[in-house]
């Protein structure tokens, strides 16, 4: 079922601007969403981790990503308005700011800076981030959105080795498959259609191709100089990885992105003109000030060659051997989901095991930890992980702000810390120089 993609002429490759193309795709996706309710199309709310998008697409659901809606309020500098609305309603200052922005959106009757967000006929909340479930419970009680909780078992202990096909993986996959069976029955009821296995296999084939390119895109940033910044350009890439997972546009984007970056590498062109330090970013972005944050690092010749965000925020789908077997689409979907979810979660809950390897893979000179006040998923173990990584004689920096709440961005303080970090790095010298 896999179709080889013919390579396009060089002129097209060079005309491709991932940022412009990414923005176009996101804009079109939102435009489609605006019409979904009027056109009577089924709509599902999903999160970026553990979402069974392949099944939903097979039923032609239009996908709303509430996390992306919330981060877009940040990017568009209107998050504070939404957050304040929810706090006035009674939400605690200490809960996830994405959730608060979304509650603000409900209070504004779904009017979002990019357009109107449609009402969902189904929500899928995985347990990968516990807040997903609490978030879906808000829709359940407020909007009466039927919710399906997809329970995906994670890594149980340090040093946990699960390989595709072993007893533990088989047991976990069976559990995931049982849940998919129920989810499919729900989708059939909502849409009045039967699951088309061929269609599911086609979607999986497109995901396979997308993930293949995505892995290559990540590998390309192991090169020096790094062709892109994982925490700026990478955010566009992962947005497409999520929103267009399983679509032809998604495959085309990733393929062209890979070609584009390959060409950059061939030209020896890096994201930063004079790359002096390669860094790893652990945590989630601060979407209200990400450009500024990256600028603080790039001014010193520092580039984020990798971020664990690019792994967990795509549900852990970045391990090369994770490919759907399209000849048995349902079983394979459960098997890959079970293991991908575990990998995505491991990046957080047993972060030290992954980081040590990623530091080596990307040849990084240091790790920047970004703690998010309102996100316990990424932040609760971060300071301890940092301490562990420091014991490996890897320079680290810890900064704190928020996903989208501009009130937690302290520019002068963060700049001071970044500058001090680079001064120390400078004294130490980059790994390439030594």
């Amino acid at each position, binding site marked *: 079922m896999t179709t080889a993609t013919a390579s396009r002429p060089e002129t097209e490759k060079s005309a491709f601007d991932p940022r412009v193309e990414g923005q176009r795709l996101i804009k079109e996706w939102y435009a489609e969403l605006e019409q979904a309710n009027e056109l009577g199309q089924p709509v599902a709310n999903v999160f970026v981790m553990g979402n069974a998008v392949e099944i939903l697409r097979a039923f032609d659901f239009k996908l709303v990503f509430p996390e992306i809606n919330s981060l877009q309020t940040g990017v568009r500098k209107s998050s504070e308005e939404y957050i304040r609305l929810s706090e006035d309603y009674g939400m605690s200052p200490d809960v996830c700011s994405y959730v608060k922005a979304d509650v603000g959106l409900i209070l504004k009757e779904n009017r979002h800076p990019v357009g109107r967000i449609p009402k969902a006929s189904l929500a899928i909340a995985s347990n990968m981030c516990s807040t997903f479930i609490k978030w879906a419970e808000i829709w359940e009680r407020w909007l009466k959105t039927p919710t399906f*909780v997809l329970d995906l078992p994670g890594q149980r202990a340090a040093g946990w080795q699960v390989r595709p096909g072993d007893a533990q993986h088989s047991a976990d996959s069976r559990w995931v498959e*049982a849940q998919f069976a129920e989810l499919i029955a729900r989708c059939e009821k909502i849409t009045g259609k039967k699951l088309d296995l061929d269609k599911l296999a086609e979607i999986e084939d497109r995901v396979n191709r997308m993930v293949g390119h995505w892995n290559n895109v990540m590998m390309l940033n192991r090169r020096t100089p790094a062709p892109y910044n994982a925490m700026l350009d990478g955010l566009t890439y992962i947005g497409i990885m999520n929103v267009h997972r399983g679509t032809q546009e998604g495959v085309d984007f990733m393929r062209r992105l890979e070609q584009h970056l390959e060409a950059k590498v061939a030209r020896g062109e890096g994201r930063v003109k004079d790359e002096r330090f390669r860094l790893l970013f652990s945590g989630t972005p601060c979407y209200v000030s990400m450009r500024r944050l990256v600028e603080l690092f790039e001014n010193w010749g520092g580039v984020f060659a990798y971020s664990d965000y690019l792994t967990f925020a795509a549900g852990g789908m970045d391990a090369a051997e994770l490919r759907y077997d399209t000849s048995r689409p349902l079983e394979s979907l459960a098997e890959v989901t079970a293991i991908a979810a575990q990998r995505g979660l491991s990046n957080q809950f047993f972060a*030290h095991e992954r980081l040590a390897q990623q530091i080596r893979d990307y040849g990084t000179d240091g790790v920047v930890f970004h703690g998010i006040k309102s996100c316990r998923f990424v932040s609760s173990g971060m300071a*301890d992980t940092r301490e562990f990584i420091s014991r490996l004689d890897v320079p680290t920096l810890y900064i704190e702000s928020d996903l989208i709440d501009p009130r937690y961005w302290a520019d002068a303080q963060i700049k001071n810390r970044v500058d001090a970090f680079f001064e120390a790095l400078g004294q130490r010298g980059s790994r390439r120089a030594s």
Partner: protein
Amino acid sequence: MPEAVYDSQKELELVLERCNEAVREPGIPPGLPEGFSGTLGHFPVYFPEEIAHAAGLLPMALLGGGNRMEMKHADARMGSFVCSICRSTTEMGLNGSLKDLSGFVTHPICDAAKHLAGIWARNLPDQVSQILYLPQNVNTPGAVRYIAAEYQRLRGVLEAKTGRKVSDEALRASLRTYNRNRALLREVYALRRDAPWKLSCTESYLLTRARSRMPCEEHNALLERALAALAHRKAPAQDKPRVVFVGGFCEQPPLEMLEAIDESCYVVDDDLLIGMRWLTADVPEGGDPVWALAESYVERSAASPVQHDARKSKEGYLMEMLRGANADAAILTAAKFCEPGLDDQLAWSKHFDEVGVPYLVLEFEEKMTSFEQMAMQVETFAESLLFALA
């Protein structure tokens, strides 16, 4: 020698003194009771103590550091925005108070709790450190099989640690011991509902919490003595409103806070220490004991903000608590920085606004030490309730 006269008040004092002594220090008491080869610390909420008990590991519910513990290490290892129980548990891991545990088990109740397994693994590598992956979807057929497999896995991990097989017979014996405990705790709560003037919330809390630092067998004996003594207790009913307390499912409020509430209200039901009494009915003693436990998680477990079950809405179970306890009002609390608790606290208050149930919203931290203001709030609330009910 003349036979000592049974003095129920004295007896109750002795029992409560033993409970107090057991829980005074949040760490692990020295020495092991007979029949146990080690201790297994478990974080709230839904831990099947029976499995550890049958493995010869004394289950120790880790319920935070209280309000007398000095934080020396955890401040540098956990952000200030993480709840106190996670921070104090980390502190106890790092300051040596829990160094003698054979292992530590946490659950996917929330993201902060999941991180504790990694923190444990990094800092106490000699201990077993596990996440017991209890499902957040119990409504799909197959959930019991999955939980049973997870329980079997835990059984295997503990067998490897102790070097001793855990037989089905040992598990059944533990089920029986814990079923007795459940029955006794149900009696304690029934007394709180039927005659709250006989047993305060604080006393009942201490009676329950004692099991966190002693074998279930000893706890059963203490509860039996307490219930016998309470049957004789002569205490006049006072003019206090009947309230339900919620928000104590994981991090625990300080005793002083409960005392302040007892002063003005009868707390006729609560979700305090729910992790020590989350199985709401007896676990079937025949058949496969692991399956029986797993099936009980699906069919007989207490609802809380950290368990998703399509059959139990958060508003629904709280209304059920109010009805069951014939309560006039609710005290809706949440631990500071506890996202699930804070989310549900708001949902509950909005629901009560709609259905017209009076409530008081309080936020607490296990480490808080000042209670005057809170006591005043509770007193004012109680007075307004009495006035409205008069």
